[in-house]
């Protein structure tokens, strides 16, 4: 099999020299355009975040991050992620076990339902919780009678985050577990392991890279969610602002350096996410091809 970069002269009379890739000038041209496009839309914005953040020096950078409101935003973001990621992890594992290891009618409908938060606008994701728990909502009167605040308070933010990050783990695990089939678990059962034991000792080691991949994506989305949380939060500084909302406030106050300083935290998280994602993807691909 010829690799790209091989013979490009098209002498059709000689079957050994096949025309399997574009002539070199065309290759250079296409590569240049592709790289220009990717550079314009990926590299430049990524670099801009960090350059803008450090424009006024590292002291200003650290001061912006240590500021009390920023600190509160970081804490709230971490809480929202710490609640939604484990919840969605448990759900993802349960759902993919049910979907991948069993056959039942309505399976594609269930998979589509799980995919819904993925395709719904973030603003609508926040709106639905305002409709349910806001003052005019279905449960609004009951909640205010018992002075429970959900919308415009931390629980609402957590709910919205759970909704938008809901599909991530399941979406990764379902195809992975489907490609692994039922063989090994059934063999474990035959050998006398109970359900839980065969899950812990046989299934989990097989899906661990898929779980990592799903968790890291879920976490990135949980910490970075903006639209849905913006609708639900009430934007109360120091109380109901997550990191993305705090970035918005700083930016709208023309405090650009501080905005980018806080934003760079999220950009760093994105880079870590990408690195772990590449690693986990590679391992999962290894696993699937070894089946």
């Amino acid at each position, binding site marked *: 099999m010829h690799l790209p970069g091989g013979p490009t002269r098209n002498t059709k009379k000689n079957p050994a020299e096949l025309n399997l890739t574009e002539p070199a000038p065309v290759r250079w041209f*296409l590569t240049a355009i592709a790289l220009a496009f990717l550079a314009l839309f990926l590299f430049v914005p990524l670099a801009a975040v960090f350059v803008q953040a450090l424009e006024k020096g590292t002291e200003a950078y650290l001061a912006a991050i240590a500021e009390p409101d920023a600190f509160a935003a970081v804490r709230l973001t971490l809480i929202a992620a710490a609640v939604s990621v484990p919840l969605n992890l448990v759900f993802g594992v349960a759902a993919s076990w049910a979907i991948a290891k069993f056959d039942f009618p309505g399976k594609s409908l269930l998979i589509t339902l799980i*995919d819904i938060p993925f395709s719904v606008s973030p*603003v609508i994701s926040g709106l639905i919780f305002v409709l349910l728990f806001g003052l005019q909502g279905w449960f609004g009167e009951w909640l205010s009678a018992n002075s429970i605040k959900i919308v415009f308070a931390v629980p609402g933010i957590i709910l919205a985050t759970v909704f938008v990050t809901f599909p991530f783990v399941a979406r990764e695990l379902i195809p992975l577990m489907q490609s692994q089939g039922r063989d090994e678990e059934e063999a474990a059962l035959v050998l006398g392991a109970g359900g839980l034991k065969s899950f812990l000792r046989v299934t989990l080691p097989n899906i661990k890279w898929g779980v990592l991949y799903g968790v890291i994506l879920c976490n*990135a989305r949980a910490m970075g969610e903006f639209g849905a949380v913006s609708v639900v939060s009430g934007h109360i500084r120091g109380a109901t602002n997550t990191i993305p909302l705090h970035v918005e406030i700083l930016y709208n106050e023309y405090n650009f350096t501080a905005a980018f300083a806080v934003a760079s935290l999220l950009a760093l998280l994105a880079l870590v996410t990408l690195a772990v994602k590449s690693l986990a993807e590679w391992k999962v691909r290894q696993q699937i091809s070894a089946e």
Partner: protein
Amino acid sequence: MGGRYAVLARSTCDLVRVTEREKHRMFNSAGKRNVLPGFGLTMGYTLLYVSLIVIIPLSAVFFKTASLSWEGFVEAVGSARVLASYRLTFGIALFAALLNSVFGLLSAWVLVRYRLPGKRIVDALVDLPFALPTAVAGITLATLYAPSGWLGRFLTPFGIKVAYTPLGILVAMTFIGLPFVVRTVQPVLEELETELEEAASCLGASRLQTFTRVIFPVLLPPLLTGFALAFARAVGEYGSIIFIAGNMPMVSEITPLLIITKLEQFDYAGATAIASVMLAASFLILFVVNILQWWSRRYSEK
């Protein structure tokens, strides 16, 4: 790794290894029940969670909209400002998805077929719009394309304004849709058999003919899927766009922003009505994507 049971299980598997298809045939014809435990528990939990988190909240939108009279609904979703926002949002999203299709196909081609130094890093960075929070993307793009920004300053002499105009919305929508086409086309391109190209070349096709007649038809289904996904994402996007858009009603106001504006004015019914239109559009796109994926599976299983 994985302990005694895993090792034993795997070696038992090797002893009784049958192909997936044969196994299915075995089970279906023999009518055997699935012996794996835990169906009740996992299925029950799954259905409960999906109902609580997805079905009930979403149905609130439709019930609230249903409480509007027909005239009220039409007025809420058909007023001039709302229609302008539909035209803007869906129109620019379409254009952005087209841009992403062309350049995404090109990028996937270059990443799969050509040698590049640092290709692994470029490939990993393609997912940046996926991993980067939308607010960060929003303020970055707005700053870059502002008249005095790194990129905006090259365009100002030509009188081209990007920030705070629909052109800025196009830039933002292209950014967030970028990974979709690349990631749907890449696996198909990687698995493409070069035998087909070799055969075409043997039979006298020029490189361009080989591409248009042999390669491109195979890439069309994933390309369309990526296009639809990028379109759906761009239509619903909020955070990346509102910083660089002008947000002026009738000119550069996207529909998600209009929903939030109505919410802030406590016009819950109006906001919900517009949201239900957007939801209907999202479901339609989701349906189309499922059909496309079914089509491309059939195509590749020939």
